[in-house]
């Protein structure tokens, strides 16, 4: 964690700012949330990396989707994701958001989460340990550095497709589409 790289700071402060102050929204989506408390408290202390849990989507820029996503929770996840300000990053925990995991054949869970909201990174493991979460955070740093963590841009450009998928899965959504023309307004 080479912190005193002042030159990098002056070259692109926004990237460095994003990297070293990832504020994760404290939203319990699935069974993986039991991993978050040890991560943010004394045992593993995510605050060393600048990651702190915040209460509302408005203040956050990192969305940890922990564990399986049931159909009802998907509605809240989409709502929260759309309320987060850009640049926002999402990380999927465990195998269930990837392809449904052990609920692969259940009628009530969402199989491939990235059909509905874009995901920057995945952490394998049916509930990854805190060390895996820190590896994910540092991996997210490299992605931000290389400019590849552009899931929110993809969401903005292909919003029409995402919206159609969401409506197919959840039926009528009771909030208006976020971007009207399919293309986003920065």
């Amino acid at each position, binding site marked *: 964690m080479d912190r005193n790289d002042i030159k990098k700071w002056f070259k692109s402060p926004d990237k460095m700012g994003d990297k070293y102050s990832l504020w994760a929204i404290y*939203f319990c989506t699935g069974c993986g949330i039991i991993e978050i408390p040890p991560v943010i408290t004394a045992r593993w202390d995510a605050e060393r990396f600048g990651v702190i849990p915040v209460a*509302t*989507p*408005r203040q956050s820029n990192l969305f940890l989707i922990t564990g399986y996503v049931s159909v009802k929770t998907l*509605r*809240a*996840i989409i*709502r*929260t994701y759309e*309320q987060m300000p850009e640049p926002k990053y999402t990380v999927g925990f465990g195998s269930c958001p990837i392809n449904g995991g052990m609920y692969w054949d259940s009628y009530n869970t969402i199989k491939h989460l990235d059909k509905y909201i874009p995901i920057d990174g995945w952490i394998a493991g049916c509930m990854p340990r805190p060390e895996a979460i820190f590896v994910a955070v540092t991996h997210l740093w490299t992605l931000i550095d290389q400019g590849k963590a552009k899931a929110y841009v993809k969401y903005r450009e292909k919003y029409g497709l995402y919206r159609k998928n969401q409506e197919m899965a959840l039926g009528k959504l*009771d*909030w208006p589409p976020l971007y009207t023309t399919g293309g986003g*307004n*920065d």
Partner: protein
Amino acid sequence: MNLAQLILISLCGAFLTYLLGKASSRIRDTFAVFISLLLIIPLFCLYGKNEEITYYSFLGLPLILKITPLSWLFAIAVQTITSLSVIFSLSYMKGKERLDFYYLMLLLVNTGMLGIVLSADLISFYIFWEIMSWSTFLLISYNRGPALHAGMKYIVMSIIGSASMIIGILSLYVNCGSLDFVQIASFIPRTSSGYTLFILILFCITFGIKNAIAPFHTWLPDAHSEAPSPFSAVLSGVLIKMGTYGFILFMYTIAGLNIIINIGGGSFHYLISILAAITIIFPTFIAVLQDDAKRLLAWSSIAQVGYIILGIAIGTGLGFVGGVFHFFNHAAFKALLFLSVGAVEYRTGTRDLNSLGGLIKKMPITFFCALIGVFGLIGMPLTNGFVSKWLIYKALILGEHPFLAFIALFGTWGTIIYSYKLIHNIFLGQLPEKFSNVRKAPVTMRIPVIFLSLVVVVFGILPGIPLKIIDTISASFGFQPQDIQIWGIASETGVLNMVNIFAAIFAALIFVWLLFLMGRKKINIAQDDSYAAGAYVPKDKYNYTVDFYKPLSGMIKPYLRDFVDDFYLWLADVIRTFSDKTRKIYCGDLGYYISYIVLFLAVLIVLKMGLKIW
């Protein structure tokens, strides 16, 4: 244009509007506005001149009208507030019936107040006082129903006040021979201090009732919430201040400064300031518990009047200037708040603080002016309320009254609590469905509101203008003049430079605004795109306005039952039951009457014989 013609014009102007009303309402409205605006100009150019005219003599006593700097200030305030409320009621009272009667009464109240302020002897003072009281009673009980009860309560208390005034006038006439203020002022030092105390107490009861000081305040909340909004703006803006005028009149013009200071060993004016301090505290916290906007404002008027009397009653030059200036400011921002609540009530039909909300999107100008009114009420630095409160506090602290200063300062935080509740429950929060098609307030309602908010801000930034006038008043009463500049007060114990503070705040605002623009471009979002923990915001059920300060009201409600009001109601019951019993004496049977006569004669004989029967 002498003073008698002035009063005459406003009097027959009132009756003329009533007659014109029979012809057509449009002419009546324009004439009422014209007459009230017309009267401001002669009043304005009377500044500085001290005319005097005896317009009539009654039983050998001359009835005199005189203009002094103090009465000039009060007259200007009275006339502007009444003309603004007349403009306001053009559209506010459009649908209602008996409008000729309403305009007649409004202009009569205006005449009464002008008469009180300009009169220089007790007879004309008393006549105009009665005109004002009775026309107020008729206006308070204008829209039937509970308003009648409120009007009854008001008139009963003001009759008690007038009665004590009559006793005072008679005893003065008997002892002093003449009722002219100048003669009485020269007579007072000659008499015993006990007699002056008696006279002062009598008149202070009258002015205390009209001014709603601590024990006599119970009529005000009912009267305000039942009276039509334009009139309650006049009522709490200037009508209550007639009591203040009376206080100043009797404490300073008639009794004179040095008598007041050491009457009863200096305890008299200290007692009044303690009473005023009490009037600051408990109405403020009762106002926090109110759910009706106008009742909340009524309780806040009682508290603010406490500040004025506190300023006047301390007896130092700074306090007096602060008190009179606070009268002027309170007239401005309290009328502003009542008019804006009236505009909201006109558009939405309700003033219940629990069901309103989100009106800032529909009535932005009313919101902005009400916000300035609230800032004036609290005393935020860029408004006139701050300057007058600063003067009062400085007088209190340097005058060695730390506990009074604490009560006054603590009252400010109570003011913040209830005035934020007023602004939040009416204008902020989610806009309910049923108010989604509320339109802007009509133009005739916005003019007075905008004018008053300009007054609040301009006199806040440049307090020198009104302070110089008030300084001439305080100098005329024997206080040493303050060193007043256009930007504030410059005295060795503490300088208040409002332009300096304005510049600092303005520069800071600009700097922070630039900082704000430096960030990324903001995105405007609708009212229902708010955080609801992942759920969509439910329509009409996403507002926190009912019982806004629940934890606080839970703690202070038991202590704030209005004991004084219950005492009065209990007293009324006792009198009613007592009079019921005495009613039974007149049972209409002749035999009883004869026996009463015989019995009475027997008692007289016994008394006459000095109980030496045998």
